[in-house]
């Protein structure tokens, strides 16, 4: 059982890292600010989400697990808000800002 949990943890963490890499590649390769913003939010949500999921299996206590979930939820909130704000700034001033 613990072996299965370990495998799950490693797979989830690996998938999280994959999304971070994907996000960075998007940030580097996409042509304009709005599409780059799109890539950024995916990395934020899925990358950290999967890393947190992987680490949840190792959380020692309920409080620790709740903290991990809270971290993810807060980053979701921050990411979504920042994306909105940046997106609006881009639209207001044009992509060259």
């Amino acid at each position: 059982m613990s072996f299965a949990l370990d495998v799950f943890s490693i797979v989830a963490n690996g998938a999280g890292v994959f999304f971070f890499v994907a996000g960075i590649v998007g940030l580097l390769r996409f042509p304009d600010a709005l599409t780059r913003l799109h890539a950024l939010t995916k990395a934020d949500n899925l990358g950290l989400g999967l890393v947190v999921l992987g680490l949840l299996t190792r959380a020692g206590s309920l409080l620790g697990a709740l903290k991990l979930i809270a971290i993810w939820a807060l980053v979701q909130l921050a990411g979504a808000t920042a994306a909105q704000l940046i997106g609006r700034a881009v639209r207001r001033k044009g992509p060259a800002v």
Partner: protein
Amino acid sequence: MSVRLALDIGLALLVFAVAARTIFARGAFEAVVDYVAYGLLLSIVWIRLFAVDVALTEDAIGGGVTGVLLIGAAARLRSAETVAAEETPSGSLRVFAACLCLLVTAVLAGVVLLLPDPGPTLAPQAAEHLAETGLGNPVTAVLIAYRAVDTMLEKVVLVLAVVGVWSLAPDRFWGGAPGEARAARPEPTLAFLAQVLPPLGILVGIHVFWAGANEPGGAFQGGAILAAMWLILMMARLTEAPPVGALWLRLALVAGPAVFLAFGVAGFVMASGFFSYPPGFAKPLILFIEAFMLLTIAVTLPMLVAGPPRREPRP
């Protein structure tokens, strides 16, 4: 172990690269964003040094109030940048400065490499009396019990800095509020964030403060998080900075050092001397003092960011 060492070297190079960016970036705004990123990396370095309390301070202050202060300043100073760019010193001075800095770095690096291992330490002394303070976190014990005068004076420095910032106000604005008048309509997205975040932030701030007695955390870190929450309310324009003449504001600013000092003096009567706590009551007293310091920090830091008064006081 070798993987970890490689990681550490990578982290070190990263920190250095971002620091170099901060110095050599073209525009001030770029430099400031680099500096914020640098603060984040630094808190990872502190984790690697097993100094979690420091990491918490670095990210609570560096990620919150410092970022807001510097980004705001860079945006205001944008128009002055082109003028200042003409005053870049000559090539020979740069070379001289570079040589000087390399020398300083070399000397410091030599000192670092020549340090004895294990080095001199006060940890056993800190551990010896830890039980008497009733605390589990040695860093908090050092801050509030062993080196209490330092910490009290540091709060005084914070208050003096606020006095300094406020004294930059033009005469006609004295007693007024910092910052611009509230906008007619706050930006909806920002307002949403500023409504959701503070309740959670206050919870986390108080948790960090409370946990600070035994786990990494404490009044500084908790206070900096609370300060950031007040700041986001002001940034979203859901609330305004209070006028600097407000009595409650001034009381809150001096509450921390005043209470701390009062208990320090009371140590003469209740215990063996200045800033000593009566045995058995140390922990409740420390938490009581820390609660007021939390308040002072949570009020001081946003006032430092908000700057001098910029509006005439209401009659």
